[in-house]
């Protein structure tokens, strides 16, 4: 622990919470929590502290980068605790696997993975309070019940606040699993309601809650300049000249590791070589970059050229089978030989960048014996592990504070900027805030892999889909193993449903770093498969919705009890719901069309309908999008709906005109003028419907993204008759207006 208090956080508060095991990050959430009461606190379990004055503090275990888990996860605890949500303060949990298990933000898994644990934690704390109340009042435990933050004894009509019993409750043995009864869903007061984000009040006031806002005493400001040709390392630089500039405290070369980084989250200790400029404020460091001149050694750098990768990929995807077989079920050879019709199409998607709005930053303080970092990482546990490895220190010597992140989308899964900050701090012997520029963020992302699909389908006499081939061409750092986000996903429609299926891959060598981009893999597969299915429906002379319903086959949950496996009953229900809501089949004026897309990913069954119009100049207006989903139990209706609305906007944004192009190993786009994000006037009206569902909850951050592109592209086809087979659609001359 550093001795300094975090910006805006009083030392006294810090000690108070640390002693209960709830060391705070730098977040304004925690500042609010500590500011509201100085009443003694009682720790019931790692998640629940109740103050003597009745205020309830609930720890949010997982990083929040905008997906709302700092609200949703505490809500689950609060529901079973039967806490009055208005009295709940949320704080960010310390990063500590012993108490909080795996703390990460990815795969839409936070709610799904913690559902049982957090209900148990809330219920156990409630049970401890009730047992104390029973002792204090001399009544049997079974006669007691609760209302929000109150203990009730109906036989006597007696009632009292939780606060009356919490001090004694901390002495109670922790009830074992099975000793507490979880609520029936019909008794939920909180879950499924619209609850305002726990950070909303801080956000609208501009309180210091983001990674970029962290400030510690004696902190210096750094920028880090890397070789535009990814993987190059510095040979020499005009350091003396830079050091002479106003406000510059130091400028030095970090030899670093030559060659591009890998997306090996748990193991990578790669630090790209570069030049660090350390200054007394951010601007001085930024300004000095204009003066800096570096000579790079590019012998190990990437020489990627995205146009060349694309040309090769498109050629490869013309073949319906690739180098490596991934799945071969039924008898695809026979199915295609006996088909009445065989259709083939090639679909293409480009590299894209995450472009989360907050560029990477990290405050680090590295000494000979310890490293302390404040970071908005989506994988703080990996940050800890890889820092320990990099500095050859025991894990206990590494302290990672989680801080709210301004968007993630998978970008913050990797921790290379955390390592850069720690290395710079070590050199300076002082805490350092490393601030990436937007240009750094765009030049050194782990991009979404491009993917090319050679699709082939066999249709029977009656127009039934009897065979399916998919040859997926994507990228690989070693030319063999698919890069993260470039591989094959299981539990798939149509792959697992159609009787005769052959899936294969071909991997093209590429050194450009790639990684997980919101709904990885699914986001490209959905576009290709769901567009192609629409093509097939047309070819079979069938109505799209009916064709899709039939293609889903029998009612089946492919791996019963595994939420991550396709359930065709749930699939059909969301398709039925969304087409009902959108008025599917209604007449539309010339130039307007409705398009449908369905996808199952991240344990969520989601169907979407888009209404678009297309004019003679190929300008596309996305008027309205309808979404229907089965996510099981909804935790926070407002939060889940917000994620879905955002996913639709993100989907339109990405398909419109986002692409990363690479020349000689360097990224060509530098900032938002070359990598446009959707703006308010282009944003469609969005209707979200969550179906009532008895299933446990699944995450809301990702599954609504994949169906967006096919729904819109199918609608464009309906509107103008042109089939879009490449993303972004600007490549086919379309423009979203």
């Amino acid at each position, binding site marked *: 622990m550093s001795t300094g208090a975090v910006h805006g956080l009083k030392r006294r508060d810090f000690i108070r919470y640390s002693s209960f095991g709830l060391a705070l990050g730098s977040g304004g959430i925690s500042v609010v929590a500590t500011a509201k009461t100085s009443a003694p606190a009682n720790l019931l379990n790692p998640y629940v502290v109740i103050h003597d004055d009745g205020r309830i503090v609930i720890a949010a275990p997982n990083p929040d980068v*905008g*997906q*709302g888990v700092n609200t949703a996860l505490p809500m689950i605890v609060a529901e079973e605790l039967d806490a009055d*949500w*208005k009295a709940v303060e949320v704080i960010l949990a310390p990063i500590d696997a012993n108490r909080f298990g795996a703390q990460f933000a990815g795969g839409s898994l936070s709610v799904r993975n913690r559902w049982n644990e957090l209900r148990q934690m809330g219920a156990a704390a409630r049970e401890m309070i009730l047992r104390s109340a029973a002792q204090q009042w001399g009544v049997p435990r079974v006669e007691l019940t609760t209302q929000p933050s109150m203990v009730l004894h109906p036989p006597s009509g007696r009632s009292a606040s939780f606060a009356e019993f919490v001090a004694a409750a901390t002495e109670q043995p922790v009830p074992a699993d099975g000793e507490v009864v979880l609520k029936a869903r019909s008794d939920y007061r909180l879950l499924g*309601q*619209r*609850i*305002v*984000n726990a*950070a*909303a*009040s*801080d*956000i*609208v*006031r*501009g309180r*210091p*809650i*983001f990674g*970029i806002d962290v*400030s510690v005493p004696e902190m210096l400001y750094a920028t880090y300049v890397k070789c535009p040709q990814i993987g190059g390392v510095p040979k020499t630089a005009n350091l003396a000249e830079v050091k002479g500039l*106003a406000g510059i405290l130091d400028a030095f070369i970090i030899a670093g590791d030559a060659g591009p980084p890998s997306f090996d989250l748990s193991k990578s200790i790669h630090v790209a070589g570069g030049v660090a400029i350390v200054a007394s*404020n951010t*601007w001085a460091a*930024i*300004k000095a970059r204009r003066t800096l001149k570096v000579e790079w050694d590019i012998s190990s750098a990437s020489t990627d050229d995205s146009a060349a990768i694309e040309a090769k990929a498109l050629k490869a995807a013309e073949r319906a089978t690739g180098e490596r077989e991934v799945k071969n079920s039924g008898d695809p050879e026979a199915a295609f030989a006996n088909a009445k019709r065989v259709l083939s199409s090639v679909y293409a998607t480009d590299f894209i960048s995450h*472009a*989360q*709005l*907050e*560029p990477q930053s990290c405050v680090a303080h590295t000494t000979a014996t310890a490293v302390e970092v404040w970071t908005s990482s989506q994988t703080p546990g990996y940050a800890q592990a890889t820092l320990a490895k990099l500095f050859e220190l025991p894990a206990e010597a590494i302290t990672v504070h989680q801080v*709210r*992140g*301004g*968007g993630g989308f998978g970008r913050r899964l990797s921790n290379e900027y955390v390592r850069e900050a720690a290395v710079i701090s070590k050199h300076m012997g002082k805490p350092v805030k490393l*601030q990436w*520029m*937007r240009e750094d963020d765009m030049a050194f992302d782990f991009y979404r892999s491009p993917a090319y699909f050679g699709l082939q389908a066999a249709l029977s006499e009656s127009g039934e889909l009897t065979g399916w081939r998919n040859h997926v061409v994507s990228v690989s750092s070693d030319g063999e193993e698919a890069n993260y986000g470039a591989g094959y996903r299981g539990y798939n429609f149509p792959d697992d449903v159609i009787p005769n299926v052959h899936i294969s891959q071909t991997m093209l060598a590429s050194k450009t770093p790639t990684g997980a981009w919101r709904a990885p893999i699914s986001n490209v597969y959905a576009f290709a498969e769901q567009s192609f299915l629409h093509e097939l429906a047309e070819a079979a002379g069938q109505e799209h919705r009916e064709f899709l319903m039939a293609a889903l086959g029998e009612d089946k949950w492919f791996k019963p009890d595994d939420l991550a496996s396709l359930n065709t009953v749930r699939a059909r229900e969301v398709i039925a719901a969304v087409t009902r809501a959108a008025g599917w089949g209604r007449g539309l004026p010339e130039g307007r069309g409705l398009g449908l897309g369905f996808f199952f990913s991240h344990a969520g069954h989601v169907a979407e309908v888009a209404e678009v119009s297309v004019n003679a100049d190929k300008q596309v207006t996305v008027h309205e999008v309808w979404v229907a989903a089965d996510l099981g139990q909804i935790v926070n209706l*407002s939060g889940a709906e*917000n*994620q879905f*609305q*955002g*996913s*639709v*906007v*993100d989907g339109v*944004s990405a398909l419109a005109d986002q692409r990363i192009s690479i020349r000689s190993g360097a990224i060509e786009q530098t*900032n*938002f*003028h070359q990598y446009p*994000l*959707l*703006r*308010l*006037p282009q*944003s469609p*009206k969005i209707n979200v419907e969550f179906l009532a569902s008895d299933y446990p909850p699944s995450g809301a951050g990702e599954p609504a993204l994949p169906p967006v592109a096919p729904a819109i592209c199918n609608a464009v086809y309906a509107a103008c008759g042109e089939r879009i087979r490449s993303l972004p659609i600007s490549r086919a001359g379309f423009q979203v207006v």
Partner: protein
Amino acid sequence: MQVSINGKSHELAGADPDMPLLWALRDLVGLVGTKYGCGVAQCGACTVWLDDVPIRSCQMPLGAIKDRAVTTIEGLAGDILHPVQEAWIAHDVAQCGYCQAGQIMSAAALLKSNPNPSSEAIEGAMAGNICRCGTYSRIVAAIQTASTRLQGLSFYEVGHDTTESQFDGKVSV
């Protein structure tokens, strides 16, 4: 150099006149509500007011401010929240929240000059503010709510899409 920020005069002795207001606010004054998103006038995360006009603080050198008054997100609320801030909570607009200080400053400036903006006026005023998380429909709804409020109508007459129990309509600072 003297700069008036949120009604208080700040002496920024020896500051580089080239320094964009954005970085001066964040690093010199310690007001970090104003955000860095792009540095090139593309995203609007850095929006503040200069004499009530919304500007991109990443493009405003300290030396060019002169005697104009700067208002940041931290200075928007008085004793109670600005109606735009209230509406932002009531509609649960934010996802990550990173863009929202800039969005709120643009929206509040719009309503100051045009208390009853049309949809087109809202689109025009907000087109410079990117929300990467895609909260646009809630932003529009919140502006409409705040507009109604500013015209003297009760907050609750217009209806909003979050539980009223979470929001008492007067969030004190």
